[in-house]
């Protein structure tokens, strides 16, 4: 199974509540997958700033004076916000790549969850309510976000096997389903220079889309290409710096419901995930068609 939720806000008045709304939606989907949970929130760090979310198995040791060490390494101001096993490092946008590379040298055991202008990813093993509480997701504001609760099929239940997967700047992907040709596609993508953290099928889907975007394809074309090159079952929701997209495989047995009002576009694996959204009674509610790409951008 697995449960997916997504929320793209059109009404800026709702932005302070993004984390709370997504958390509520994700907790409703808990019984679709209790193994691990994750959430990607998009919010601007401020003009000219970027952010990197890192995860550590030993946060006390790894995060101690990490901001000072990173500041020294890149020669630019650094702000660090530690939340349990994750830390968000804010750096000048121009230093983002340098900071990312410095982090892997400064603390080799750190895992990079995401980097970009807007994205933060928090994910861990456990139930959505516990994961969301651990990272205080409900206090977070933002413009759009994606959440996932996992029932593992293709690889181990670990932090790095949790969704969302981010394989490019400000990009992330969550998946309900299973890919059957992921080993072959991973080999091909490695040959093209993409790197992988896990043996997970979804990470291959994410890297496939990131690679297309790197070669200059639009998000729409990248999502179209999943329909021809990826074999298996999938409902994908992808996030980018300014929007999100949805695509289902041609068989479309993995469920998906969407709702749109003047205030938001929402995605849920089931209608249950959407029932507490404001104005849902009068929303346009529909199921995305199989083999059809949808996306919303601001």
């Amino acid at each position, binding site marked *: 199974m697995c449960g997916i939720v997504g929320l793209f806000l059109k009404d800026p008045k709702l932005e302070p509540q993004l984390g709370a709304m997504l958390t509520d939606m994700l907790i409703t989907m808990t019984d679709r997958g209790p193994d691990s949970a994750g959430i990607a929130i998009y919010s601007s760090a401020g003009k000219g700033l970027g952010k990197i979310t890192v995860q550590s198995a030993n946060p006390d040791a790894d995060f101690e004076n990490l901001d000072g060490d990173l500041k020294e390494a890149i020669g630019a101001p650094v702000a660090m916000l530690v939340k349990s096993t994750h830390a968000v490092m804010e750096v000048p946008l121009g230093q983002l790549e340098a900071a990312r590379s410095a982090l892997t040298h400064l603390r080799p055991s750190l895992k990079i969850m995401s980097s970009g202008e807007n994205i933060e990813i928090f994910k861990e093993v456990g139930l959505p309510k516990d994961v969301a509480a651990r990272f205080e997701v409900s206090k977070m504001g933002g413009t759009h976000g994606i959440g996932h609760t996992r029932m593992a099929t293709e690889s181990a239940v670990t932090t790095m096997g949790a969704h969302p997967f981010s394989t490019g700047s400000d990009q992330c992907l969550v998946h309900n389903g299973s890919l059957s040709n992921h080993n072959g596609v991973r080999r091909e993508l490695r040959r093209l220079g993409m790197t992988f953290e896990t043996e997970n099928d979804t990470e291959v889907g994410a890297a496939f889309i990131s690679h297309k975007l790197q070669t200059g394809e639009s998000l729409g074309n990248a999502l179209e290409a999943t329909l021809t090159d990826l074999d298996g079952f999938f409902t994908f929701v992808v996030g980018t710096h300014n929007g999100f997209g949805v695509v289902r495989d*041609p*068989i*479309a*047995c993995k*469920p998906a*419901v969407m709702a749109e009002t003047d205030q938001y576009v929402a995605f849920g694996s*089931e*209608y*249950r*995930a*959407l*029932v507490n959204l404001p104005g849902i009674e009068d929303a346009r*509610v*529909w*199921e995305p068609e*199989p083999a059809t790409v949808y996306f919303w951008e601001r």
Partner: protein
Amino acid sequence: MQTFDLGKEGLRALNSSLHALKGQTNMTAWEVVNPKGAHAIAAGVDADVDITVRGSTGYYCAGMNKLATIRIKGSAGPGVAENMMSGTVIIDGNASQYAGATGRGGLLVVKGNASSRCGVSMKGIDIVVHGSIGHMSAFMAQSGNLVVLGDAGDALGDSLYEARLFVRGSVKSLGADCIEKEMRPEHYAILEDLLKRGEADHLAKPREFKRYGSARKLYNFNIDNASAY
């Protein structure tokens, strides 16, 4: 009228109250409020009662229904009226995938659209969809009637047995061994009855439909294919 607040009293309490109704009962009218997309609402009912669900439902609403009339004043999630035995299920909105799957009897009416795999492996149920249906509908359908006022998606009636499929609009593609067949007087009579009972006789006329059925080449043993078995 028995009114049941699903938000307060919970699914198990609802379904055990409904399962307790057997044979003659004077509690014939039920209303379920606050369904909020919950699963298995009014599944397994075996009594001649009238149940109205005020809102949208999740997986398997009205599954295995026997005798009851169940009205959904919203949309229905996957597997609505799955394996229905008898009775009537009427959905005001849309139905998600595999509506009426494996149904053995009764009537399922969808006033909006039904998505993929509508009537998959149906075995005697009648289904009337006022809108359109998705791909792989009536896959391996064995008996009963599927009436669609709108269009049908890809691979309609793939590996079909003896169910009758009536479509008024376009069919994106026919599945293996499914062909268009002539409309004979008995088919007009079936359609007239189903359109009336499916609350669609004001929307369409029997003569506007085409009939699709099995070419009977796939499920009959053919000695020329013996080596393939």
